[in-house]
């Protein structure tokens, strides 16, 4: 049994559609008035892969999804599914299932009828429709709510029905437009797992749009971080976190601190020691640079004549996050909570880099 269900019936037999299709978004450009929502955006999705589009609001992620769905036409660029160019195909013929952010269930139909709607359009017999709708509702754990109307269902339940409805037509691609944003935290966490489990079982190519990095990192096979209509980096979550390709990604994904550093012959000067630079920085030659540090990459040691002062503490559970003021900036440092009592506010500490190298970027100019 994959999903929670209030009945103890055997696992429902929904055959894996197995038709996860490869998707290619090629150099999409879309301009709305003065804003470029998509600025040469490209992305490939392998069959059955779950890709998350992650970025701040306005970065173009929803636009990209809607172009794929067929609700927006790009000014230039193309969309390919299964190797075929579908740019000219209207939305209703693209055979993709979409789950919207909220309130997309048809209010005049019960949950069952909502799920069966796609099949009704394809003129399937009533008995077939009902059976399949029943299976899908079982799959999302809502069989006993099948006759309820959307206004009688909670937000989480509605989104589960929406998911069942999208899956009913056995689409090649599943599109999700921030489906969890309108739900509260607990429901969000549960649904996250359920969606991912379902997707893996059915092996459907999936594109999932979100602004919540926790969602993206925990659910996706690969994450595409977007900013201003372009893809900043596409990689597996662990790679994205550990090896951010740009400053934007480093600061958007996970927590980081910015520290101005001075260049040395083969590295930078950081916390009184020399540190190696990660990656290729030819482009930054000649400009001032900052280092981007993760809290877990910095260690703190109490020292009477230390250069840093603890000016902030946050208890996070297993770790405690310190804010250490040094050289005019505040650096976030994670320490084990069992050691936290050593680092009261005002304690003088010395900081050291505990990772092998450090990510640098152009110095941020004060606005």
């Amino acid at each position, binding site marked *: 049994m994959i999903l929670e269900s209030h009945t103890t019936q055997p696992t429902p037999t929904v055959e894996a559609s197995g*038709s996860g*299709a*490869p*998707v*290619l978004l090629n150099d999409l450009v879309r301009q709305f008035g003065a804003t470029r929502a998509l600025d040469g955006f490209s992305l*490939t*999705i*392998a*069959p059955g*892969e779950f890709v998350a589009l992650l970025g701040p609001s306005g970065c173009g992620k929803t636009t990209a999804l809607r172009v794929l769905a067929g609700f927006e036409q790009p000014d230039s660029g193309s969309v*390919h*599914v*299964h*190797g*075929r160019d*579908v740019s*000219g*195909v*209207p939305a209703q*013929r*693209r*055979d993709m299932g979409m789950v919207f952010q909220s309130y997309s269930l048809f209010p005049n139909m019960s949950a069952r009828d909502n799920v069966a709607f796609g099949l009704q359009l394809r003129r399937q017999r009533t008995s077939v429709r009902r059976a399949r709708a029943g299976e899908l509702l079982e799959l999302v754990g809502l069989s006993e709510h099948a006759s309820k109307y959307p206004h009688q269902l909670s937000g989480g339940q509605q989104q589960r029905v929406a998911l069942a409805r999208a899956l009913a037509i056995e689409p*090649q691609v599943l599109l999700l437009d921030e489906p969890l944003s309108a739900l509260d935290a607990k429901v969000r966490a549960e649904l996250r797992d359920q969606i991912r489990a379902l997707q893996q079982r059915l092996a459907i190519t999936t594109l999932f749009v979100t602004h919540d990095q926790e969602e993206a990192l925990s659910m996706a*096979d*690969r994450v595409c971080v977007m900013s201003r209509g372009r893809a900043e980096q596409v990689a597996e979550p662990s790679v994205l976190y550990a090896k951010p390709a740009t400053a934007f990604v480093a600061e958007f994904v996970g927590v980081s601190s910015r520290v101005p550093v001075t260049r040395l012959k083969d590295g930078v000067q950081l916390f009184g020691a020399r540190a190696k630079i990660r990656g290729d920085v030819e482009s930054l030659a000649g400009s001032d640079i900052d280092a981007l540090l993760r809290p877990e990459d910095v260690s703190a040691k109490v020292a009477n004549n230390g250069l840093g002062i603890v000016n902030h503490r946050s208890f996070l559970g297993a770790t405690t996050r310190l804010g250490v003021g040094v050289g005019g900036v505040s650096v976030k440092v994670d320490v084990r909570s069992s050691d936290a009592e050593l680092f009261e506010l005002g304690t003088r500490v010395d900081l050291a880099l505990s990772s092998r190298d450090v990510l640098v970027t152009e110095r941020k100019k004060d606005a």
Partner: protein
Amino acid sequence: MASVVADNIVDFELPMVPLDLTKRRRIHWGRGLILWLAAAYFIIPIYAALKFSLQDISGKFSLSPITAIPSQPGLAAAFFLSMRLAFVTLAIVLFLMVPTMIYVHMKMPRFRRFMEVVTILPIVIPPIVLILGVLEAAPLWLKSSPYLLSLVYVVLAMPFVYRSLDSGLGALDVKTLVEAARSLGSGWISTIWRVLVPNLRSALLSATVLTLALVLGEFTMASLDLWETLPVWIVDFDQTNAHISTAVAMLSLLGTWALLTLIVSIDRSNSRRRRRNRAS
């Protein structure tokens, strides 16, 4: 994970139907037709009546109907009677509804539902029926005064006033404002006057304008109660010159129109402001 592979093509038939542009254009055309026909139906009478008001008896353009207005017998009296009735109605309805609604919003929120239902009732008992009952039930001393009409107009105005005040109060957090004021030492009357009323300015303005428009245009009850208010005058007036009565009617219309446009635009700029405040 591999990137996209061309050799993964399953023989999938996607009917390549291009976007149906011809259908779109046809619909636009139909929509335009509806809008133009509607515009004609609504605008032509206004234009025609205005033109008619500016013609003398022979049909030529003339300002004489307008200039003749002030000298028409009974018009001034009728106009001022209407105004007096309007202000008395306004005073009563505001004095009755404002404190009641403030109280209900603060202490009896469930009563709002009842009030909503009650204020729909005047649809079930329209003026023509209401006056039937009022004339029978009212005592003689009341019937001999025109202000009986004011008293009844209050009932007619209630739905509008209720709706305005309800939305105005709903936008404020009445309970919190009142508690804040009272904790700072303000008495009840001072609280209502200095804290609530200024925040209800546009709701009150709406309510006022709607009440005025209602009273100034009310014909049914006034004519059957035999009082010569402005609308009654317009109908009763001996029309040797239809142009003059039409001119008065059009002036009255334009006046009401201006008033109503005023509220609708206030109301909309308010909801825009409210939306902006909520968004920030």
